């Protein structure tokens, strides 16, 4: 309130109230969900005391266990693959003089961000149904491949942003000191890129872990991940068990995103 000598040019009538109400609306449902995951009773509206009951129930549910393991496997593979591929692509497309085809590369990389998920899901359903029939393989490979593809842009953007801000002179200095190109890359460029790479990997992991639509269309029978398992359960009677899983997923996402923020803050 320092600049409020007489007339605050930054003030707009009602804006503060609307903004605060928006934050309230944004958080109230999520907070409610978290609180009621600890409810002793069945209800999602009547509080009957604190309990870990639904977390225990979720933990002992074989389907949930399997889905959780599957989610983590897919997200781990997909985020690692996507990050490696995105790092290479970023090295190929950043800090180079513009070349013919560069726009095409950008378009292809960013394409998953523009096409509605339902369309990609349907497209993959069609292709993978044929491949599954032809090869007889119906493992997690399809999910990992699909997730890798749509995670690439999420990994690519922070890595590219980091790379663009890098000082070329450090690498030139390494080369002047007779470092081979590979050595200069390993010892200079790569460490400098690391915050971007880690950030990209984390985003990719969260995006893969949260995906519902594409997974729903690509998965074979009995290949539920946590989100698709939850989506299936929402059709039936909802138990606070779902609240418990949601809360766990929520905290994983929040933890990863917080770490991402910290990483990015250091950069700046």
């Amino acid at each position, binding site marked *: 309130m320092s600049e409020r000598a007489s007339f605050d040019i930054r003030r707009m009538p009602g804006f503060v109230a609307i903004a605060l109400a928006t934050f309230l609306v944004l958080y109230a449902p999520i907070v409610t969900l978290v609180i009621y995951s600890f409810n002793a009773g069945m209800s999602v509206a009547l509080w009957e005391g604190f309990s870990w009951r639904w977390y225990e129930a979720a933990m002992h549910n074989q389907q949930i266990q399997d889905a959780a393991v599957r989610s983590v496997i897919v997200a781990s593979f997909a985020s690692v693959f996507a990050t490696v591929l995105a790092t290479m692509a970023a090295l190929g497309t950043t800090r180079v003089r513009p070349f013919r085809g560069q726009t095409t590369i950008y378009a292809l990389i960013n394409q998953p961000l523009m096409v*509605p998920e339902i369309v990609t899901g349907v497209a993959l359903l069609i292709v993978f*149904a044929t491949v599954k029939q032809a090869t007889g393989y119906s493992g997690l490979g399809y999910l990992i491949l699909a997730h890798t593809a749509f995670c690439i842009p999420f990994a690519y953007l922070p890595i590219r942003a980091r790379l663009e801000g890098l000082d070329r002179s450090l690498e030139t200095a390494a080369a002047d000191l007779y470092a081979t190109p590979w050595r200069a890359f390993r010892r200079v460029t790569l460490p400098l890129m690391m915050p971007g790479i880690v950030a990209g990997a984390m985003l990719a992991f969260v995006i893969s872990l949260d995906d519902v639509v594409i997974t729903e269309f690509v998965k074979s029978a009995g290949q539920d991940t946590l989100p698709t398992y939850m989506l299936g359960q929402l059709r039936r009677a909802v138990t606070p068990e779902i609240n418990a899983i949601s809360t766990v997923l929520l905290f994983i996402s929040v933890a990863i995103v917080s770490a991402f923020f910290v990483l990015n803050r250091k950069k700046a």
Partner: protein
Amino acid sequence: MHAPKPSVDASHPAPAPARTGALNLADEARKREVRTSWLLSAPALLVLVTAASGPLLIVLVYSFLAAGDYGGVVWSLSGEGWFKVFLSRDIFDDTVGIADAHLTIFWRSVRLSMLTTLICIALGFPTAWFIATRSRESRNVWLFLITIPFWTNLLIRTFAIMEVIRSEGIVNTVLMTAGVIERPIQMMYTDFAILLGMAYVYLPLMVLPLYAAMERLDFRLIEAAYDLYASRWRVLRRIVVPLVKPGLIAGSILVFIPSLGAYVTPRVLGGGKNMMLGNLIELQFGQGRNWPLGAALSLTLLVIVMVALIFYVRIVQKEAASRE
């Protein structure tokens, strides 16, 4: 000083005497650089073409095939899939029953997406303004608070809304306990529920670009307007809105496009009756067993999205051009 189409010799002029030799060398180096770029990008592109872009082409092929009896397709050319999409748009043709159903769903998708965008502007604009006018440190905290829901699973957020509005949910329980209503208000499985859910889920997508635009705002212009006796409303309309227009458009596109293709939110909150385009598409690949129609509907959705994107790019380019 960038040439629109950079050629090798233009950007690296070699000294005159050794011109040809140096040119060849520069040419070689340039070629190698470009080749490295492609080699490094190739693995990512391969995955993207296999599992993102390529399958879209196959959807195009499928949309022109005949439907199999138990899902899948029969490999014979047929316009039936597209025929059904376009017929559904024909209001004046009352001979086909399904047409009305498709039309209703198309209209619901467009209407709810536009309303979602408007609600997000109404709430997002003041919120972004609020964040942009905080002190530098607290700004980051508020921004972080907007980002958290953005990165939280969409299904969980939809589910959280469901817990609030369903018959045994918070709102109804509180109102009934307080004696305001006798029977729960039916909010689930209505267009209202979908609208509420989508606005809730996509709001951060509006706030973030708006904030980015407002953060760069030159507040001296606003001060000048006030000095010239402009009212707050006039400043908002004539100074702030035109200046943050790129952010406003970006936010609108970012909200409108996923709303149009929404699948999870209408499925959970709208139920089987209040379908949107995404659910209609899914239906054709599930119970509907009409893959060509599903493929044609997917491409229709894709075309609408692309048109919206092109529209957006045009406006941004025009803005950029007018600023120079």
